[in-house]
């Protein structure tokens, strides 16, 4: 029985700006189904006394001191910019922006 509908896949893909063809939507709905079912099976054995896992690494509080280090040179920063102007990235206007 399918738990992930084609509509859901299409919606999530749209949110993630991934352009899927109809046949890809169908295939992914099936694959995501398998994943969701597998996770559900794990949830069945995880009883209330098993704490939720926040992170696979058994570490907390990995902090850095508040000490500045050199920044990237501007020419390196802008090296990947398709367009630039006055040291800034030039990007297309977003619809509905002020």
């Amino acid at each position, binding site marked *: 029985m399918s738990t992930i509908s084609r509509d859901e896949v299409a*919606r*999530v893909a*749209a*949110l*993630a*700006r991934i352009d899927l063809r109809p046949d890809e939507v169908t295939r992914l709905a099936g694959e995501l189904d398998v994943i969701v079912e597998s996770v559900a099976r794990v949830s069945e054995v995880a009883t209330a006394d098993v704490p939720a896992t*926040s*992170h696979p*690494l058994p*570490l*907390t*509080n*990995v*902090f*850095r*001191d*508040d*000490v*500045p*280090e050199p*920044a*990237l040179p*501007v020419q390196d*920063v*802008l090296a*990947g910019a398709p367009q630039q*102007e*006055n*040291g*800034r*990235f*030039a*990007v*297309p*206007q*977003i619809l*509905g*922006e*002020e």
Partner: protein
Amino acid sequence: MTAATTTDLVAYEDAVRRYDPVLGIEVHVELGTLTKMFCAAEVAYGGEPNTQVTPVSLGLPGALPVVNGKAVEYAIRIGLALNCTIAESCRFARKNYFYPDVPKNFQTSQYDEPIAFDGWIDIELDDGEVFRVEIERAHMEEDAGKNTHVGGATGRIQGAEYSLVDYNRAGIPLVEIVTRPIEGAGERAPEVARAYVQTLRDIFRSLDVSEARMERGNVRADVNLSLRPTPESPLGTRTETKNVNSFRSIERAVRYEVSRQAGVLDAGLPVIQETRHFHEEDGTTSSGRVKSDAEDYRYFPEPDLVPVAPSREWVEEIRATLPEMPVARRRRLQKEWGYADAEMRDVVNAGAVELIEATIAAGTSAAGARKWWMGELARRAKQDEITLEDLVVTPAQIAQLQGLIESGRINDKIARQVLEGVLAGEGDPEAVVVSRGLEIVSDDGALLTAIDDALAAQPDIVEKVRGGNQGPVGAIIGAVMKATKGQADAKRVRELVLDRIGS
């Protein structure tokens, strides 16, 4: 754009008589750390575009974030100052959306596990009434870059409109503070909203976690507002007015939304849940994005960062270093200075607390310090349309000026002239007194000459005074003061005049 924007506004007083406003306020504060939240790029206001940027702030592939420990400490300080519980363990989450100022396509934030939650803060309204605001949460996140929009009209790219992005601000640590619904403010909702943000600003400054300058965008507020028929009714649909960035604008935005929503409801229409923009020029708001699918941020735990689990020892260590909170501090100072409630309120509203405190510390009485800052200096500041803080006179100079009066070297009237000199940049009061030759004429010889002249000019007064009527003595004193250009000690002149007539 929507039907809701075309309905009439309802007069504010009428709207709050018939509807109960409920507020919800989100405040973002930029932390004053030396480096960014997740990388060691230096943070400095006003740098050239894209000069405070690392692969992490640019979201380049493979770049890994590392948490700034100082930013966590500051977030805990803020949480404790807001009477919050500090989480034993919390984590970061990715808030996914596509916008050019967020180069990673997600903002690293906190979602289901904020670092601080369940707090409250007492705010003081203009008349001294204390209003409690409950805090739902305070969480850590990073700021976005800055877009500058270039209109097509400039013609630099033919006919096209585009934006320029500077990522210096991307990754600056932020703490976002979210209130629970603020109920019971009634017609004072605009004042409550403003006083709340003002109180937070004062707290950030006293905690020394941010410069908290509104005009630089260090503190930004989003104001949610909804109306309901009565305080017992369920909450109405709210709008969120974004980035209202001055205290005055916060009041105006709330007033406008109350009037607008009342008009919508009066017309029998539903308030649309949406983001609105505030317009500084005319104090109105306009429709932005309608909350919809686009608001689904697909939050999930940030896999590149491990949880933050502040030890209880660390939290208590931070708690022990918290300064006195602004409201408590004001109450203590009021008691020490012996000001009446109304006097203290005026001092606070004039932004004179620190100035008066420093003037008193420099040796002036509480009454003397208030006399200057709330009198002549307040008048000058108002006249020049600047704040007291921006006057070119220091508390130490005011203390010196008052000292000159108390030691009898100048009188109150002359002191105003001395102050003129100080404000004109002629130096300390002492120097102005000397350079302008304003010292009181205390040499009895010089005074007696002036007195004799005055007496000779008005022999009838001498007769009256000799006859036991001391009333007209004032005319002689006035003449002497005039002759000495106000630089005489009026008390001494009176003594000498009576002495002269009597002899």
